[in-house]
């Protein structure tokens, strides 16, 4: 409580979830998020809360569905292949207007890939991965303290909008250690009651949690409820950070671990006289299209850097259009771009 600790990213997320009042945690072991699972295993029972190592990631997301339906704060965590397994369950959560937090500590893919950090699940997280017209709020921390803070925010946003929220981290962030001072635990009694939850129909009409209606007109109405919600979130919950963009000629667009590396590149480039800035989305959904569009009016180049073959790059191009050049530099397979390599790309586009 209010003390500084040296924590791994995975541990910071776990501890933040506990402080946010996560009552039920269900997960299946997978590298590189083992420390998150272990932190929950050590601490949740001690606090009288629920920890289950589920039989699979599919079972885990289904347990989340049950806990979420009766109104408790609940979370699961996994890494890329496990998140693939959860997609049907995620679609059900979204379609049923259930709050939940899902952590993806992204690793190299596709398939089994490897356990090194990557950013190749951006499409899966932001464009659906599950079926149907739905979105998750996707939060992308780039430091260990931010991972903790965004995890606590995730629970609040999930409850406020009745939506699953994803923390999109990566293997490097999950493993690295930094000093963190996490906020005090949330007072759960101060949170608004969930009138819709399946807490037992005593003195009221039954609450039914579902994502189903055979009649197209009624399913359309259910979908419109979701779309209206997403419109509100898009209006009110965009988060991003700009660094050194006031006089920039080249802006690096990056998120997560890559954005952190890019901050060094900004400093290194400026030492060479290249006016570089950084545009760092924090919400990958809703994506900060408007601020990036406005920034693109003032610069020559928006260089997207990702640990992928170019996934966020598509949203950058959507935002920027013809306003600036939109080159891309990516690393694949879990290779982490070095500051020097990114700087080398920057130099190519410098005037």
């Amino acid at each position, binding site marked *: 409580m209010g003390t500084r600790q040296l924590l791994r990213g995975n541990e910071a997320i776990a501890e933040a979830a506990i402080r946010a009042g996560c*009552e*039920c945690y*269900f997960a299946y072991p997978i590298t590189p998020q083992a420390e998150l699972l272990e932190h929950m295993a050590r601490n949740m029972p001690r606090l009288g809360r*629920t920890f*289950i190592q*589920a*039989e*699979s990631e*599919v*079972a*885990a997301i*289904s*347990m*989340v*569905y*049950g*806990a*979420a*339906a*009766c*109104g*408790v704060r*609940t979370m699961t965590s996994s890494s890329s292949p496990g998140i693939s397994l959860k997609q*049907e*369950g995620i679609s*059900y959560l979204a379609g049923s207007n259930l709050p939940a937090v899902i952590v993806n500590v992204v690793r190299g893919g596709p398939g089994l890939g490897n356990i090194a950090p990557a950013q190749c699940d951006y499409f899966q997280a932001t464009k659906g991965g599950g079926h149907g017209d739905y979105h998750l709020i996707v939060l992308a921390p780039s430091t260990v303290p931010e991972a903790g803070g965004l995890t606590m925010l995730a629970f609040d946003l999930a409850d406020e909008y009745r939506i699953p929220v994803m923390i999109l981290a990566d293997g490097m962030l999950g493993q690295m250690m930094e000093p963190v001072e996490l906020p005090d635990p949330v007072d759960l009694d101060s949170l608004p009651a969930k009138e819709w939850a*399946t*807490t*037992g*129909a*005593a*003195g009221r009409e*039954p*609450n*039914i*949690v*579902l*994502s*189903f209606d055979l009649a197209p007109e009624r399913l359309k109405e259910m979908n419109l409820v979701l779309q209206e919600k997403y419109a509100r979130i898009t209006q009110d919950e965009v988060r991003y950070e700009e660094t050194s963009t006031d006089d920039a000629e080249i802006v690096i667009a990056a998120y997560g671990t890559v954005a952190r590396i890019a901050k060094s590149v900004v400093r290194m480039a400026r030492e060479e006289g290249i006016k570089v800035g950084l545009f760092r989305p924090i919400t990958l959904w809703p994506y900060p299209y408007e601020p990036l569009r406005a920034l693109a009016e003032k610069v020559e180049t928006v260089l997207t850097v990702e640990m992928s073959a170019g996934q966020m790059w598509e949203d950058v191009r959507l935002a920027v259009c013809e306003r600036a050049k939109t080159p891309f530099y990516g690393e694949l397979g879990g290779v982490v771009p070095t500051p020097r390599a990114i700087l080398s790309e920057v130099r190519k586009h410098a005037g």
Partner: protein
Amino acid sequence: MPVDTSNMTKVFERPRSLTDARFTYCPGCHHGILTRIIGRAIDDLDIAERTVGIAPVGCSVFAYLWYRCDALQVAHGRASAVATGLKRARPNLIVFSYQGDGDFASIGTAESIHAANRGENITVIFVNNQIYGMTGGEMAPTTLVDQRTTTTPEGRDPKLFGYPIRFSEMIAQLDAPVYVTRQALYDTRRINDARAAVKKAFEYQVEEKGYSLVEVLATCPTNWRMTPVQANEHVRKTVTKVFPLGDLVDRGT
């Protein structure tokens, strides 16, 4: 000419824990009988206000319409895992899942086994009619050898597709479950036995004794291509030879 009942005692009526909704099941389908039995158990134990039902995917997808209780409709096969999350989150709730043979014994195999193995304090109702009704009559894991279905049009060949799976016997091997039983509904005596079994399975949850599984042999007249009366006879004569009736485990006493 209807008899004047004003001087008579009503001895049978709809359970009060069931809504007035008309069941969407086919004529003669046993889902309706089982639903009534569950409603009766909820009445007898007076637990409607804290019961939450979990509807699967299948013919009973609409199960959430039948009870005056909170309910969830969940992904195919996952009801036992959802029940786990719900019960752990709010242990005071009486949680039951209601699943067909595809939901429980095919796509949900892992979730069904592991909820039982953890000994979750829930009541699982497993409706075994040896076929997939909702999707038009495909083979189930419990389909009998030589039984014709849309995916075994020449009859189930064990060399290609294995044998009917006796899931309750598998669950009965586990250490945790407190009550595992197989029942049927093809005549009044079986219906009475099933009613007692379902009530016991809910009672054990109320008494926090642990995991109960009630497998119920049911009919699917539509996809078996039989009349309801023929279908009942098929269960009595043939199905019970493959799936024996009775209690496999009862550690609750």
